[in-house]
């Protein structure tokens, strides 16, 4: 297994980053629907009370209020759990943010199965699909806390709607401090020519571990961190198809509508090659610790490695 120096929750990047950016003079405001304690947004509220607006447990209103604030020229952040925003306020995001392109940044935490013990209702496996269905939204899924802070800063400094998906559980820090997040550019965390593993969020570390497993079988796997889902790094996908001829996608999310669909779409249009999809499909989650749940649903290095071998075998098709 790749040794991670640090474990940190990506959700913890929100409050401190907003404080830093406000201190640098950005006109940031923050709307909160009773989850700011969990998303770390309240830290911003403590520093800048006049810029922090609690609205109670009311996600629809949260988005509308944020859009109204943004329409006056402010950079309006809001946060919730990924299962409630977009899920509980989809139409508000569509009408008040996506269509008019208001400057709203939704940072949703507690995404994916790794949310853990609360179980199926709390495990968002569809938020990426919902957000990608709004074509004007930038959609970013940071792999670790380093990237999360940079993505939040990029969102604040770039005009227009942003969705940033963070995690509750501590996850491995896979980038060092020299890493620079770029919109529309995927980082290549490992070179390889036999197959490409494309992963997001907590599955990036899983993919890196899978690549280690594969290398002991003499297989060289390229590993891409697909943090920027919109704008998409089409070139990285085409290069993966051209240069490695087989692809595995890995996501803590439903395959349909998520990373898997994105990659499949580009590959079908540009260079058809076999793809194996690791992710959730026909069912919802279950309770358990992050580790238990990922193992339960086979989102493991072993499963990714197995899929890679299958994809490689299928090259001759």
């Amino acid at each position, binding site marked *: 297994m790749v040794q991670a120096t640090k474990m940190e929750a990506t959700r913890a990047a929100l409050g401190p980053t907003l404080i830093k950016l406000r201190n640098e003079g950005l006109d940031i405001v923050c*709307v909160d629907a009773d989850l700011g304690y969990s998303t770390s947004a309240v830290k911003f509220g403590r520093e800048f009370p006049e810029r922090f607006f609690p609205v109670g447990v*009311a996600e*629809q209103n949260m988005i*509308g*209020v944020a859009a*109204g604030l943004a329409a006056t*020229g402010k950079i309006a952040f809001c946060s919730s759990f990924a299962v409630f925003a977009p899920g509980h306020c989809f139409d508000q995001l569509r009408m008040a943010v996506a*269509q*008019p392109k208001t400057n709203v940044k939704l940072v949703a935490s507690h995404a994916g199965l790794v949310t853990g013990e609360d179980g199926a209702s709390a495990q968002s496996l569809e938020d990426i699909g919902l957000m990608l269905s709004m074509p004007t939204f930038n959609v970013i899924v940071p792999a670790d806390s380093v990237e999360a802070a940079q993505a939040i800063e990029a969102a604040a400094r770039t005009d227009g709607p942003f969705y940033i998906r963070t995690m509750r559980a501590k996850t491995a820090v896979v980038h060092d401090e020299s890493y620079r997040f770029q919109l529309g550019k995927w980082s290549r965390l490992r070179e390889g020519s036999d197959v490409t593993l494309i992963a997001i969020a907590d599955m990036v570390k899983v993919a890196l571990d899978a690549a280690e497993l594969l290398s002991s079988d003499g297989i060289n796997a390229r590993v891409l961190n697909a943090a920027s889902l919109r704008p998409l790094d089409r070139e990285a996908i085409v290069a993966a198809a051209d240069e490695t001829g087989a692809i595995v996608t890995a996501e803590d999310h439903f395959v349909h509508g998520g990373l898997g669909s994105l990659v499949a779409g580009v590959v079908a249009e540009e260079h058809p090659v076999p793809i194996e999809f690791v992710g959730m499909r026909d069912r919802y989650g279950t309770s358990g610790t992050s580790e238990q749940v990922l193992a339960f649903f086979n989102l493991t290095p072993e499963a990714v490695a197995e899929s890679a071998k299958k994809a490689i075998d299928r090259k001759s098709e």
Partner: protein
Amino acid sequence: MVATQTSVDELKSIAKRVRRNIIRMVVAANSGHPGGSLSAADILVTLYFRVLRHDPKNPDWPDRDRLIISKGHATPGVYGVMGEAGYFSTEEFDNFRTPNALLQGHVVMGKPAGVEMSGGALGMGLSFSLGQALAGKLDGKDYHVFCLLSDGDCQEGQTWEAAMAAGHHKADNVTAIVDRNHIQNDGYSDYEHFPDGDQPAKPGGWVMADNHTANIMNLEPLSAKWEAFGWNVIHVRDGHDFEAITAALEEARAHTGQPTVVICETTKGKGVSFMEHNPDFHGKAPDKEQTEQAYRELAD
């Protein structure tokens, strides 16, 4: 630019023009929403020609009052008055609802300039208005935010989320205006249009022989609802009386410590006899003969 003190006679003649614009647009597009445009026409005329601090030549003026159209389908009314106020060339009326036209079917933020929010989905306007109001307080600006709501808007839960939050934040720079015409898409909101004998035993609404629904969702006691959510309530018994509307909106602007709602009792389809109180013209254009009659009734 501060709103002018337009006389009632002038307002009346502007409102007639606006109503003709409404007919012109829905006929040109052969679609659109005349009923709720006509019911709101006098409110809109009062806002644009008496109450709003705005400048049609400088629609992005940061100190302008905001008017948020939550009932975003009422575009013929909104464009009809904005055109009269000089926001765009009235020739655009004839391109209403065509591909990429300036005047889209439902309101679109900034298209034409001066439209503050995109709409078409009910229930969203008050949240957006609250955001603008909170920004105004934060920025130390004294603009006021008005939000035009319909019956249907008041049935969406989001409106009550926003109402609760506006009360909680003591957003006294927001005024909600309810265009209370008691008619919506499927038919009649409540018993307003029915003699007592017509009320059947079944509570909660029923479908009539003409396929319209009666008693879809009664909002009464509407004043009590807003009060319980922390709002100052002003009830305007005739939502087509310019002086009454003006007085209520000025009082709303002046009220401090809590937001104000102005509930205007209106007539859906107001000004065109066969559209009045008629759910059929919620979202339908008149035919040729009806159009001629409408223009006759709306002549100066």
